């Protein structure tokens, strides 16, 4: 059998696969992986059913770059927000989830030897995708402002000097994620302006992962970097129907950008997947049509969803605080991270002292307490992992699990009171 190169051993260790398996094995309450435990809203489920029972063309191939009703509605909806006339056929590519949109963007825009700046903590797929495109990942971390007593994701900031120092003649792009996974930070206009200034000055592209764009809390406002002056022609904005309509299993996403960038992504798409599923696209098209009419209205799902999750988020934070943990209140997104450095537990695990502390803690939490979370250093580069290994990530987009979480966390608290420090 022919030998396969090292390149193909890219990211064979996936944290997700490992932790999901462990959570299943120990039947843990899963607050790790990011998906809702409730169904998508009725109007979009109805749209999907309508599509399924529609004419035979609903079950056959549609336009490869995006089902016409969907790209039309996306263009209409987002033109209003971005303040730019988006061409449905030229400026949009529909993909199999935002994940495939990211893949097309990196493949199309990153050449061999290019450097790509990734802001940490980052959704873990960015790094292997940069590598697969022949590029090199360069990292710059968000850092908590020292001395703040009320912990919020807004206290984590990007240093302009540190970011500028990472730019070289080989830098092709900067990747940002706002609202951020796992931290929940929602970049403010000034922060985006700082990044935009650097992109313009150094002629860089910006890949902006905005899948959680509708999930902002406490008055935080999501701002699209593509809407800043000089940024439309150099920004690739990624969105997700899964996160927008609480239907992660539908795997419908999109890229919106200037046509001259989209056309390269279309080539990648055409030679890898070519078409996305028709019926799901039809349903999402209806979803956006409805939301276009409802925009700004209290009936809008884009208002109702964050309002519902606002409470979940508060509840989880209180629970964690009552245990003596320090949650960092996210301004947006699906997740909350918690500082676990004050926890004194004997992890009972001498075999893996190489592994970061949070990895070991998460495994212990799954096995001993039946609670699954994700270690935050998984979202950091190898060079910065040790600095950020005292946080774990919870997903609070859960309606049904919250009660059992409280119980197991209280149990944990009780047990912890009886532990010897390690």
């Amino acid at each position: 059998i022919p030998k396969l190169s090292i390149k193909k051993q890219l990211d064979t260790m996936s944290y997700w696969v490992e932790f999901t398996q462990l959570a299943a094995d120990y039947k843990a309450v899963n607050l790790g992986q990011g998906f809702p435990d409730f169904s998508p809203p009725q109007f979009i489920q109805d749209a999907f059913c309508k599509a399924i029972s529609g004419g035979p063309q609903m079950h056959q191939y549609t336009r490869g770059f995006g089902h016409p009703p969907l790209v039309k509605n996306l263009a209409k909806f987002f033109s209003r927000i971005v303040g730019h006339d988006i061409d449905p056929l030229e400026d949009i590519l529909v993909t199999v989830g935002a994940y495939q949109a990211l893949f097309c963007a990196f493949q199309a825009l990153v050449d061999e030897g290019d450097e790509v700046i990734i802001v940490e903590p980052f959704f873990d797929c960015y790094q292997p995708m940069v590598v697969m495109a022949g590029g090199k990942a360069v990292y710059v971390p968000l850092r908590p402002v020292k001395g703040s007593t009320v912990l919020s994701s807004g206290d984590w900031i990007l240093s302009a000097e540190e970011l500028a120092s990472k730019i070289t003649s080989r830098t092709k792009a900067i990747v940002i994620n706002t609202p951020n996974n796992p931290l929940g930070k929602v970049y403010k206009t000034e922060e985006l302006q700082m990044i935009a200034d650097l992109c313009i000055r150094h002629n860089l592209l910006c890949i902006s992962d905005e899948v959680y764009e509708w999930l902002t809390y406490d008055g935080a406002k999501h701002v699209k970097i593509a809407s800043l002056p000089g940024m439309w022609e150099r920004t690739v904005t990624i969105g997700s129907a899964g996160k927008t309509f609480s239907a992660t299993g539908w795997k419908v996403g999109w890229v919106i950008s200037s046509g001259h960038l989209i056309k390269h992504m279309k080539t990648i798409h055409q030679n890898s997947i070519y078409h996305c599923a028709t019926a799901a696209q039809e349903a999402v098209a209806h979803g956006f049509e409805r939301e276009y009419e409802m925009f700004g209205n209290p009936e809008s799902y884009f208002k109702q969803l964050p309002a519902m999750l606002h409470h979940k988020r508060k509840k989880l934070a209180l629970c964690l605080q009552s245990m003596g943990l320090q949650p960092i209140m996210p301004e947006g997104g699906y997740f909350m991270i918690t500082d676990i450095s004050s926890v004194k537990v004997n992890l009972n695990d001498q075999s893996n002292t190489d592994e970061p502390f949070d990895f070991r803690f998460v495994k212990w939490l799954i096995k001993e307490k039946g609670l699954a979370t994700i270690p935050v250093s998984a979202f950091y580069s190898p060079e910065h992992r040790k600095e950020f290994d005292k946080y774990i990530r919870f997903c609070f987009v859960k309606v049904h699990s919250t009660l059992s979480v409280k119980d197991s966390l209280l149990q944990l608290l009780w047990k912890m009171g009886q532990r010897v420090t390690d």
Partner: protein
Amino acid sequence: MSWKNVEYAVKLIVQVIMVAFTSLAADPSVVNLGQGFPDIPPPSYIKEGLAKAASEDRMNQYTRGFGHPSLVKALSQVYGKVYGRQIDPFKEILVTVGGYGSLFSTMQALVEEGDEVIIIEPFFDCYVPMVRMAGAKPVFIPLRLKPGKKTITSADWFLDPDELSSKFNSKTKAIIINTPNNPIGKIFTRDELQMIADLCIKHDTLCFSDEVYEWLVYKGHQHIKIATLPGMWDRTITISSAGKTFSVTGWKLGWSIGPEHLTKHLQTVMQNTLYTCATPLQEAVAQGLVLNYELMGQPECYFTSLAEELEVKRDRLATILQEAGMTPVIPEGGYFMLVDVTSLNLDLSHITDDEAYDYKFVKWMIKEKKLAAIPVTAFVGDESKKQFEKYIRFCFIKQDSTLEAAGNILKNWAKS
């Protein structure tokens, strides 16, 4: 990525075929026997299965990345029976976005920069850009027509053993085969597959077997999986499609089956490209497979009933074409039919575009006769264009009314 150097060629190959002809044929007054998708409905239970799946909370959220558990288990069951071996649902199967996605995952996973990949002409057009995207070089070998036959069938097209052998060298990483073949409809015989297998084993080459039309086999023929030949399981990836199996091309689900040591690389690619496929669609396909597994061997089984339905359409289209003075190539499998248009003696020399004859013919036919087909030189490399430029491809997985409409056009054509 090194493929960027040939981006122009990549775009040219794919765009010209599908994008250009799709828009030409999109005119509603055109009878479209071009692009390969059914205009007949899928079985009702498959649509109902999707509606039912979509109504369950959990089915609207992420499932297992390498394939929804109920689907990979159903695949393991169905194909375990077909292969006559135990297939591990978690280690030997990957669910992908259509057969297309399986081809992509396979090429990205197993083909390296500088490799050569043998492609048999005519070929499904995406093989070439995908091989190039992996940094490898496509090496072509044409199927050749046995001379002197009156009634032409796809079985009259064969691979010259010496010619095939000459294409293998130390750089050859894989050979791609497609059986039943698109566009010819050829089903490779056991002897032909054995010849390919012998060369794969001799040169330690992989085999990528595109079998998306595996159930569309007509009377008197049998689809054989090259992976079942001795020594081939360990070096073969077999690709299938829910879209072609259940007449739901718009669901875009497919799967790759192969040994763990190869499949695991495809799974890595999946993990780094789109991570997981849509859940409710996978659940519905799983149910469709389970239902038909129970019916296997019986006339109600969709795997056999669809082929019977299509055989009637195949024969109808062949008759229509023969009556119009054209020479159809009767396919042994699949849902396409090649037609030799030489005997029409259509003089297109007045069209000065630098295009092969079949491209000019098809464009002329769409415009003047309101009938769409696909030019076959779209499926071959440059050196074989002369050999195939008198052929066009028709798709016959169409309603009887569509075929009759084509029939009327062709009847009038014969008269004029």
